[in-house]
């Protein structure tokens, strides 16, 4: 075991290994931070996106840092709530009737049109009759009558979807038409006002409204077609990729090695059986089997992990380790151990396996990214745990919504970069370890 420690100490002489370690450390820190700040159940709930959790997020928003690399000021989401502005509301009582006038003011100073405008309304008395007229006032003093109609207890007015309004704006979407002056391609900057004049026939009635002008950038990772913050999946992708990759790599390498050693030691029928299973397994396509397991049995990440390990165990690794063990088996110290009474189990575990473990460490580390990519591949093909947010799943969503065709590069690039640096980190460390533990390579 001390030879392993010595080898690990030697790592600091390899800059690539230090870079690799730094990447892995970053991923580990990110994972720990994620697991602590966004607990698993919370992440699952957020990613499922039920109960309109994400209603305040724009769709297809780019990450905020896009704003740093362009001279234009990209549109952020503006939320104006009457409850936060007590001065916005004027209530007039006329006998049995009540008139409520709400004026929402906001500054729009961006160089881009927003992507959507929606109004959410909350009426106090259920079942009362309330009618309202909605106006839009632009910085250049125009007042546009948007709509007139009744308001339900919990109501929303999707201004961008209002086809009558679009017709009146000359065929322009509301979020473009309401923010532009004439045929100008740029939005008009300045103070906008949104006015609601509502009348209710119940004197106790009250109204609160929230206007959301959706922007084009959001958060550190952007959002997807369901307004979900991609941060959740990008952050949670790290621990899941690491756990999946490490468990699969540990599981396959350790079991492969053990089975190869058992086959070599007991020879005969045992070895023959292991070899035939391996050969048959090597003909069968791993990916297809995994897809079938995912389709017909279960998409649970644990079932997929188990299948990956079982398929990985009886792979080409068995042949490689078998070749090594055949050499070890003939070493005089094994014969000596037999002479002083060591038997099968002890020889396999105490005499054969420790001989190979130093060579196993680099193999194991370089195998981690292969499993991380396999998990992402399966998710990309739609075989992934339905509740767990992962990098592969983001790519799957991006692919199925035509992200690249629509120009949503961030949606594809960020998870891909995370996958690549994960692979890079483990590979750089693994190659350095390979040089340390297989000194034959050092001279090359």
């Amino acid at each position, binding site marked *: 075991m001390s030879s392993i420690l010595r080898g690990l100490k030697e790592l600091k002489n390899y800059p690539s290994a230090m870079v690799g370690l730094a990447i892995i450390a970053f991923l580990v820190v990110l994972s720990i931070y994620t697991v602590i700040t966004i607990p698993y159940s919370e992440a699952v709930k957020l990613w499922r996106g039920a109960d309109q959790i994400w209603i305040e997020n724009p769709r297809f928003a780019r990450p905020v840092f896009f704003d740093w690399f362009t001279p234009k000021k990209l549109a952020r989401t503006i939320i104006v709530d009457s409850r936060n502005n007590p001065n916005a509301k004027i209530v007039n009582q006329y006998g049995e009737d009540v008139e409520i006038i709400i004026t929402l003011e906001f500054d729009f100073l961006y160089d881009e049109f927003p992507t959507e405008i929606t109004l959410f309304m909350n009426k106090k008395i259920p079942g009362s009759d309330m009618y309202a007229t909605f106006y839009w006032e632009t910085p250049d003093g125009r007042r546009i009558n948007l709509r007139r109609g009744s308001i339900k207890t919990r109501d929303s007015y999707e201004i961008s979807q209002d086809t009558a309004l679009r017709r009146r704006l000359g065929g322009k979407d509301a979020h473009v038409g309401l923010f532009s002056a004439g045929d100008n391609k740029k939005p008009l900057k300045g103070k906008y006002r949104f006015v609601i004049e509502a009348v209710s026939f119940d004197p106790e009635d009250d109204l609160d409204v929230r206007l959301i002008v959706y922007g084009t950038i959001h958060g550190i990772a952007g959002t997807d077609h369901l307004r979900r913050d991609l941060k959740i999946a990008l952050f949670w992708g790290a621990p899941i990729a690491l756990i999946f990759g490490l468990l699969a790599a540990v599981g396959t390498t350790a079991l492969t090695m053990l089975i190869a050693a058992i086959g070599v030691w007991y020879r005969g029928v045992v070895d023959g059986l292991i070899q035939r299973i391996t050969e048959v397994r090597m003909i069968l396509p791993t990916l297809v089997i995994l897809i079938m397991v995912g389709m017909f049995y279960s998409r649970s990440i644990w079932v997929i992990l188990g299948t990956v390990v079982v398929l990985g165990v009886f792979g080409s690794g068995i042949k490689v380790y078998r070749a090594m063990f055949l050499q070890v088996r003939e070493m*005089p*110290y094994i014969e*000596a151990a037999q*002479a*002083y009474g060591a038997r099968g189990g002890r020889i396999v575990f105490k005499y054969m396996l420790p001989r190979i473990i130093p060579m196993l460490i680099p193999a194991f580390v370089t195998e981690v990214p292969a499993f991380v990519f396999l998990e992402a591949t399966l998710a990309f093909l739609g075989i992934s745990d339905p509740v767990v947010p992962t990098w592969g799943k983001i790519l799957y969503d991006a692919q199925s919504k035509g992200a690249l065709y629509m120009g949503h590069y961030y949606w594809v690039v960020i998870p891909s970069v995370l996958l690549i640096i994960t692979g890079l980190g483990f590979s750089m460390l693994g190659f350095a370890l390979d040089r340390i533990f297989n000194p034959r390579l050092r001279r090359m």
Partner: protein
Amino acid sequence: MQEKSVLLRVENLKVYYELKKFGLIHVGYVKAVEGVSFTLNKGEALSIVGESGCGKTTLAKTILGLIRPFAGKVVFDGKDITQLDRKARLWYSSQVGFVQQDPYGALPPFMTVKRILQEPMLIHGIRDPKEQMARMTKILTELKMTPVEDFLGKFPHMLSGGQQQRVVIARATILNPKLIVADEPVSMLDASVRVEILQLLRQLQKEHGIALIYITHDLSTVSYFSERIIVMYAGWVVEEAPTQKLLDNPLHPYTKALLEAISDPTAENLKTFKRVPPGEPPNLVNPPSGCRFHPRCEMRIDGLCDKEKPEYFWIDDQQRVLCWLYKR
């Protein structure tokens, strides 16, 4: 000789390696050891000499129970070790020690000396750390590896060849065996440490009354060592005699040739040309008919040696030879 003092009796031992074609079809046997018989008394040292490929090592491994013989018996302390059950085999493995040729290969490179010496004790149920330490200290002191603490923590690659071989000897003797089989224990060591190792082994053997089988191809070292010599050729024991008798008066033509080949560091060697038997050791799958040595023998009797297998002829009650020349 009293039957009581006999420790090991090998009776008509045959060890064959099966040859197979395509891993299935039997095509023949490599007859590595053919009809070997001898006895070894308690505390006695016996040398087995012969050239490479004559079956010495196979014989040693069979005696240790590492190879199953094709036929014959190996009787140790009255028990046939080829017929032992699991438990008895474990007991037998504590009764015999094995010293191999390559000391570095014989030590697991990933274990410390302490761990290496503990392994046999753990297998045989000696788990008390004090008892283990006492045994390790005792044996290493006897082998002049002092201070003991300096060596226990070391890995085999940190030791010199001689030290490695001493660890191997320590491991072979730590269970207080009755028999040690040393298979060319010094042939891979530097000439400078050979004598030292042999003397240590001899000393250990005498002090503890351990019987010893010393296997070598080098006749120049056997005189240090043993009371008796067995000469093997192509799986046969061709001659057996007390050491001094054999060295002074070799009978079998092959023994004579072996003795001729010993190099003494004298200037005379420059002038003389050694007579070594021509040819190579025979193929053991299809050994020569009659006497296996006859194709290389200068003294062969045509019509007899190439036709009929020779028998043992006893010269006196200690020396026997497998050669037609001594037919009476």
